[in-house]
């Protein structure tokens, strides 16, 4: 049966998610760069930027965490895609063996096919469980990223307030806060989109 692109198979959804979330990696890398820049400006600004230092430290930490999490998510999504394909091949093999079994009348042949069918059934169950396990891991990682992005948005709001006290450096720090806020929103949106995609498709 052909895959309906309006209702894609599980392996396609997982591969799409892996690709889509990889773009979040680039955004997290931008935040890491923005944190390094903010740190450098902070040193130049001296005392005026004292209140901003914990914010740049937080940005750096959250960027590094996000990069690690997104890499882990990518691995989980790829594993889901890989095992789903394996399961699809096992499903096809099972159907074919079953078809042959229906066509043979000989008891010995039928029994030997029964052994093969049992082995393939076991494989299918194991593959199904493996996909479910990877899916649980992936959902937990998506939750973690989403939580972090919420924290980033509230820190970005504090950063805007702190920027007011940085004198001539205010535009730089406002831009840092803006980068942080935009990045968090982009990543959060991708996380939600991919979660919805997984929730809408059924593992057969």
């Amino acid at each position, binding site marked *: *049966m*052909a*895959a309906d*692109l309006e209702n*894609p*198979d599980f*392996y*396609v959804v997982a*591969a*799409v998610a*892996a*690709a*889509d979330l*990889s773009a979040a990696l680039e955004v997290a890398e931008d935040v890491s760069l923005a944190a390094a820049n903010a740190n450098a400006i902070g040193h130049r600004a001296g005392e005026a930027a004292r209140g901003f230092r914990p914010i740049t430290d937080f940005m750096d930490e959250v960027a590094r965490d996000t990069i690690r999490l997104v890499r882990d998510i990518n691995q989980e*999504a*790829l594993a889901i*895609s*890989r095992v789903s*394909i394996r399961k*699809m091949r096992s499903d096809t093999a099972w159907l074919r063996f079953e078809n042959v079994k229906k066509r043979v009348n000989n008891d010995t042949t039928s029994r030997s096919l029964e052994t093969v069918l049992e082995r393939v059934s076991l494989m299918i169950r194991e593959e199904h469980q493996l996909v479910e396990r990877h899916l649980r891991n992936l959902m937990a990682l998506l939750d973690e990223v989403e939580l972090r992005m919420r924290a980033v948005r509230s820190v970005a709001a504090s950063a805007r307030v702190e920027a007011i006290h940085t004198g001539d450096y205010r535009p730089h720090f406002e831009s840092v806060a803006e980068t942080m806020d935009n990045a968090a929103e982009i990543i959060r949106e991708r996380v939600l989109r991919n979660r919805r995609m997984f929730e809408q498709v059924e593992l057969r």
Partner: protein
Amino acid sequence: MKATAIYDKSHRWIMFGRDPDKVGGIIDTNQYMIITRNHAFILDPGGIELFSSMLASILHFVPLDKITHLFASHQDPDIISSLGLWDQTLPNAKLMAPWMWEGFIRHFGCENIHYVSLPDQGATLRLDEVEFEFVPAHYLHSSGNFNVYDPQARILMSGDIGSALEKDGSPLFVDNFKEHVSKMQLFHQRWMPSNTAKNAWVERVRKLDVDILAPQHGRLFQGDDVKRFLDWFESLEVGLAKEGEYMSEKKIELT
């Protein structure tokens, strides 16, 4: 899987390969994707074991519905045994492949994809502003075999021609042609059966303007190395059946 843009101007050529997740015991392969304004065209999409890595890598560049064409240079499993899965994934796509392998390639599963037979003399395909040529490369090594030439990018995807057998993770481009010869000599002598076909191909390709010769295994050739390869290949005796090696009377007993 590593993805590298080898041409990125009016349209793009992406090379996929050097897959660290590849299962053991299978030969490393290079896959290519051409992206034009409205289309993506996958050349020699690879074996069934590579499918999931290929799909995930491709989706970094294009959405599924943009992939409209596949190409199989010939019938080998490392070229197109993933067809059954592409058939499920891209039911509306077209597969451009040699006419003589249609009944064979369909054994990999081709219920939805439309098989477009390439005639022996070659053909062209226009995707948006780019016209590609399917260049005959019969008997190199398969008896029904094509290369894909892009005159704008000056790239010839040469299938097994120019392939080398070397360690996983080798560099993308040939950096020392003399050293590289040892990695491709046996492959060409043993896999390619016909000196006549080889010389006709060299003559045909010399008339094309090629900057990159992109084989399906091993490193790519660029600039002067393309000419070096053509000279080397022209002077190579292929299809050798050496007395005492392949023709020995002595049989080896297998267990």
